[in-house]
Every structure is written in C-alpha cells, then in structure tokens.
C-alpha cells in the first residue's frame, strides 16, 4: 500500500495553523509543510514516477482564515529517526504559526487521515454579550428541532441532516463582550458543515447582532465503534 517499494516509516504529525498563519490556504499549508520537512533534513520518502515528490498525506483541509490547533499530516520516512529527534528537527525548521505539536509513528495498516478523521471540534468567537448568548441558544435549538439545514456554498445548495452532522448540541458561553460557540461536527462523505454557516444561520434566524471574530478548529478525532479517540 505504501507505493514506495521499500520499507518506510509513517510518522504522524499533529500541528497547529494559528495566529497570522491561519490566513494560509490548504495548498499553501501543504507546500509549507513540505518545505519544513526538507529544511528539517528528515529522510523523507519520495514517490516514484516521472515527477518524484515527497510522500505525505493531510487530514481534512482548513479554509483560509480558520485556525487549527490539532491538525494532522502523515509523513513517510525512508529510515527511522527517533520520534523526539524528528519532532525537534521539524520544530526548529517551522515558523511559529505553522509548527508541529506532537509526533508519533503509526502502523502502515491504519486508515488514512482523510478517512479516519470524521469528528471536528470548533470554537467560533463572536462579538456580543449575554443577549447574544441567549439568542444563539434559542436559535440553535430551533434549527436542530427542524432536523435539517440547507446551506448555500458557492452557488450550490447542500442539505445537512443535523442528527448525524451535529453529534453534540452546540455549547454557547459568554465572557464579557465575547461569546464563544463550541461546535462538534461530523465530517460526512460529501463534505462537512462549515461552522460559520451554522452560526450565521443562527444569527439570521434570531435576527441577532453579532460579528464572527474568529473560527478555530480545536480538535480532530477518530470515530471508532461509537466512541471518539485521539488519532495519535
């Protein structure tokens, strides 16, 4: 399955995309991580064929502007490097905003990141205080009670079944003039619900006043036999 012909080692990297670097696109994240791996001097494996390139795989993409605190990539190495050493090498070759948090070797038979990571947790921060909190709570309950949410994305309409898409009720809390919505979203086969879309729908429904200040994906989890676990 590895397609590299010889024994390789699959290093899973949890990384963050944060601060100013949340403005990177997924493709820019991919290229930047590749460059960091080369700068780190790791013995990365290279695919065969006419245009050989580094073998690595990413979890679900993050849009421009959304930060991620626990994002994942798998990097295949040609030879074994102790994981602590690989981590230090990667860290010292990375910009602070796009940097490894933890690494671990995982078995080749484990499913790919793309298919394994199906639960995403988000934090959406809005400008607004207690009134906004109460309004959002009401709107979320009403939306969930309807069972479905239709979202326009790039001119196309997508309908999400909320029972499956939202495995947990949104959690809304306020501190001063900031309101934080905690969301858990199941990533389906046909794409995932963008947290801004759900929050915007709630704002519209309740005719609420609140500007989204930031969106952060805080965790990505593997769902196995009905329970969730850390991919590392």
């Amino acid at each position: 399955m590895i397609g590299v012909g010889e024994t390789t080692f699959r290093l899973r990297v949890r990384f963050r995309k944060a601060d100013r670097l949340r403005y990177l696109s997924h493709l820019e994240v991919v290229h930047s991580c590749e460059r960091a791996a080369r700068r780190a001097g790791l013995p990365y494996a290279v695919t065969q064929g006419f245009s050989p390139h580094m073998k690595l795989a990413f979890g679900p993409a993050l849009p421009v502007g959304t930060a991620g605190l626990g994002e994942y990539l798998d990097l295949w190495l040609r030879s074994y490097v102790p994981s602590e050493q690989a981590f230090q090498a990667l860290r010292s070759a990375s910009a602070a905003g796009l940097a490894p948090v933890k690494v671990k070797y995982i078995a080749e038979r484990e499913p790919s990141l793309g298919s394994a990571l199906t639960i995403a947790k988000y934090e959406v921060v809005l400008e607004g205080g207690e009134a906004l909190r109460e309004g959002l709570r009401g709107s979320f309950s009403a939306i969930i009670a309807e069972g479905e949410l239709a979202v326009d994305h790039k001119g196309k309409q997508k309908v999400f079944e909320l029972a499956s898409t939202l495995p947990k009720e949104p959690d809304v809390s306020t501190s001063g003039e900031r309101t934080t919505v905690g969301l858990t979203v199941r990533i389906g086969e046909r794409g995932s619900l963008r947290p801004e879309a759900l929050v915007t729908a709630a704002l519209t429904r309740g005719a609420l006043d609140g500007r989204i200040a930031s969106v952060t994906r805080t965790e990505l989890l593997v769902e196995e036999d009905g329970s969730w676990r850390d991919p590392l």
Partner: protein
Amino acid sequence: MSDLWSRIEPLLAGVERPVRYIDSEWGASHDDASYRVALVYPDVYEIGMANQALQILYGRFGALEDVTAERVFVPWKDMADAMRAADVPLFTLESCRPVADCDLVGITLPYELTYQNILEALDLAGIPLRSCDRTDDDPLIVGGGPCAFNPEPVAPFFDAILIGDGEDAVADIVAAHRSAKAQGASRAEILRALARVQGVYVPSLYEPRVSDGIFVGTTALEGAPAIVHKRVLPDLDSYRAPTCTVVPFMDVVHDRVGVEVLRGCARGCRFCQAGMVYRPVRERSADSIVRDATAALQCTGYDDVSLTSLSTADHSQLEEVLRRLTRRLEGTGVTVSLPSLRVDAFSVQVARLLGGGKKTGLTFAPEAGTQRLRDVINKNVTEEDLLRTVTQAFSAGWRRVKLYFMIGLPTETDEDIAGIGELVGRVFRAAREVTPPGERGGMRVAVSVSTFVPKAHTPFQWEAQIPLDEVRRRQAVLRDSMPGKGVDLSYHDSDVSFLEGVLSRGGREVADVIEAAWRGGARFDAWTEEFKPSRWSLAFEETGVDPGGIANRARRVDEPLPWDHISAGVSRAYLRIERDNAFAARTTADCTFDGCTGCGVCGSSRGANILAGDRRG
C-alpha cells in the same frame, strides 16, 4: 512602537489573498535597529517575492551594522481601497510600521509598466510624490534596478537613484546618509552628499534644458558629477549571495530558490539593453555555485533551484555544475532548472540532464525570420542551428517547443516577416520527421511575437519604434505567412509595447504623464486585465506630451538624449559603430570567446570579464 497590525487585521477578512499581508515567513528577519530601510517592490507580493534582486538587497541592507531592512509590496486594489477607507498607511511587512517612519525607502525599478505603482506606494505611505515637495521629516526615497539606465521619466519622484549593481553601493548610501544626518545636515545637503557616492544619481542636481520645445541636453548643477557612472560589483565571488532567503507561504510566480551563476552577457544582441548595460561578464566559480545552491536548498526547503543569469548556458563550467548538483540531489525529488536556453546542441544535452523523465517544453529565441535580419540584430543563430537543435530535442522525446520572435526591428521588410512563417514551417517539418507517426498529433510549436521596443544605451537607441497601425499591418502579414496546423501564434499586446517605448526613452516631461495616469486610476498596468490604454491617452492629452514623438521618432545620432548623463560604461562611439554594423548586416563576435571588441566597459572601477573556465562558442 507604531505597530499597525491591529488596524490591518480587521481589513483582511474582506480582501483577496490575505496571505500577501501577514509576514511571518521563514527567513524574514525581525531586527529592531535604529536605521530602518523599507524595500518597496512596485507590484503585489507574489510578483515581488520572486525578484532575486530584492532578496539580495534585503540581505545586504540587513547585514549592515544597526540597520533593519523590511519588505513592502503594493497592496492589491481591494486592500489599497480598504486601507484608504480605514486611514491605514502603507506599512512594512515585518514590523507593520508606517513606511513613512523609515529612514530610507528603496524602490525597485523592474519594468516601465510598474511606474504608476511607485506613485501608488508613495501616496499610500503619505509621502509627497515629488522630491521637491519633501521635507526633513520624510524618508529618503532611493530608486534602482534595470530601468535606472534611463531614469528621467521617474526622476522627479526620487531623491536619488542608484545606477548599476547595488551589493556594495547600499553600504555607501547608508553611510553617507547617516553621517550627513549626524552632522545635522539639511535635506539639500544630504542629497549633495549622496551625489558624491559613486553610481548615485541625484535628479534634483540635474536640469534638463529645453529650447523651443526641444530637449537640448542636461546640465549638472554644482557639486554633481557631469556624468554618473554605473556601479559595478567587479567579482561576484567576492561576496556571499544570500542563501537563506525569505520563503513565501504564498505560491509565488517562481517558486524556487535562485542562485546567480553569472552576471552580464557579451553576446552583443543589438536590441538587448541588458546585454549592453550589465557588462562586463562575471562568472562565479563552479565551487561557489554548488556550495550556494546546496546551502540555499537546505536553508529554504525549496524543491527546485534555478541557476539564474541573462544567459546561463554560456557559463564555462555549467556542465560540471549540473553534473555535481544532479548527483547530489538524486532521489530527493529536488530539481535544478535553468531560466533560458541557447539555440544549440549543448542546450538539448543540458535539458536532458535536467529534465530526467519530464519533457515539458523547450524555449528558444531566434528573434528574426531571416539570416539577414538576424545579422542586423547580431543574434548569432543560424537556421541550421535552430533546425538541428529542434531535431535533437524532438528525437529525444520533446513534443513542444516555443519560439520567440520580434517584429518592427530596424530594416525589417515584409520579406523578413514572411520569413518568420517560413522558418516556423521548416521547424515544424523538421520536428515532424523525427517524431513517430503516432505521436505527431501531440506536436506543438508555440510562436510568441512581440513588437521591438528600442531601448536606451543600445545600438538601436536612435531608432523609431514602428507605429501602432504599422504593427497591425505587419501582424497581418505574419498571420498570412504562418502555417496553421500545430502552430499556436500569440502576440504581445501592441498598446503595451507602445507605452513601454514612451516610458523607456522619454525624458523628464514623462513624469507628469505618469502622475496624470495614476491620478486617472492607473494601477498595476503590468497586469493584462488591468491595463487600460485610454487612461494613458487621457494623461498624454492632459499633459500635452506627444507620445508618438518619443516612441515613433528616429533620432539623429548626434542628437542629445535624455540619458546622456548616465553612463552604463559602453561608449557612445561603440554604439554608433555597432549601429553602422547593423545597417551593413555585419556581425560582431562575443568578446568572451573572441577577444575584446572595444565596447569600453572594461577598465578602471568597472573591472573586466571574469570567466571561471574556457567558454565554448
């Protein structure tokens, strides 16, 4: 600290590609020295970050004692509008400081069609557009780059312009500025001090003279040298090129690290300004190229290193360099690339060495369709060379080739134009013969045709550029002569070439045109979809400058020219001899193979040709 980030960030959600404005790249340096330099590239981030000179100067300024260099790009229209609405001034990327708070603002002059963006940048920064309106509180505005060899069209916007190589000059400029400031000098005194630095042109110390509406010469005022001689870095190996450049997150136009292998070109193509103004030829040694390429790849993490220069295939040790680099990079997925190739067998060999299995496409520039015209322009390529090269490439598996030509070259006739079509036809047939029948459907010859723009400091600096209706007529002649099947013909926009002609040979009066065009909304004219010829027509009308009188007029060879007080080292007498040779269709050999031909560059502070080995002709 005047960090503007908290005011910039709220604007980012509403603009395209916010990654242009966020800094934080690998290799960006965040010093906090007392003397601040803002390096402005007059285009957007992804264009400017691909510019090697900018990276070199960033490194050179930053290495000076107690000097911080920061990058500045022109915000795209959406961001510029948002900044104006929110009253956010132009800022440096690294510290988000107002550009106006820096001590020195260096602005690159990469290409004539970026001139209005200089004004866009100064205006966004809140700095007066013209040197004469600036006060002691404003930063020093210094220009430099390829277009500096005729600085007159932008001269009023600059306090000083560096002519020639910047590597060593930047230290002298900073030192002169600092010491004058420390002595409490006025702005006028500072400018006079800068005029004493070799290679520095201070426009306010020169007065163009006009009599009866005709330009009759430029006078140097007291304290300024009559002629400003370009600065030359005599030996490229005497300094360390930056190997830890800033690595953009954004995918930029050339996503690779560049290592300069030589500077200058002595092939002597008579239309080519770069070939005249960057003499002498200075090769770097194979050892230092390999060392720097390796270090640059390690430090930046790029997967491609480009060996850059005007004519990389001329490097006398190129084969050795390529052999050593490809051996080192084997199995890493990292590649070596060359920006341009010559029309000869060696190039195909090189392309094979580089491409491995990839056969993307080869590019050659015969420039003219007949041997007579190629002799006029001194493009020493024969039809035989071209056919042989193409045959070798297609035999080796290439299926695509791109050919560059020009129309409007001096002495060109319709026969020469039809000659382009015939030559392309012969190239196609030669390629077809060595391509297996089953693969012939995939064969492609792309032909790209631009209009010749005469440039300052070349043997053709006196010639008339052909007017627009004549361009259209000749394009039609060309179209009729072009074989249809398998050939893709494309033209460079002739309105752009016309404007380029005006901006490259105009005098100081053109500054008013540039300002009027910018006030009329011209920004990013180097972007095809942004270029509106009508804005420039209005600007010419408003300022009363006749563009045809600049672009389409033949000059007498003894006529004063707006750039006569700027010396690129090649003598005017040599340019005249080369002009005579052109009209007699006599070629001139490359002095790096066949001995000096007397252009006048070598000697004194400008050094001489430096070759790392023997060149192959």
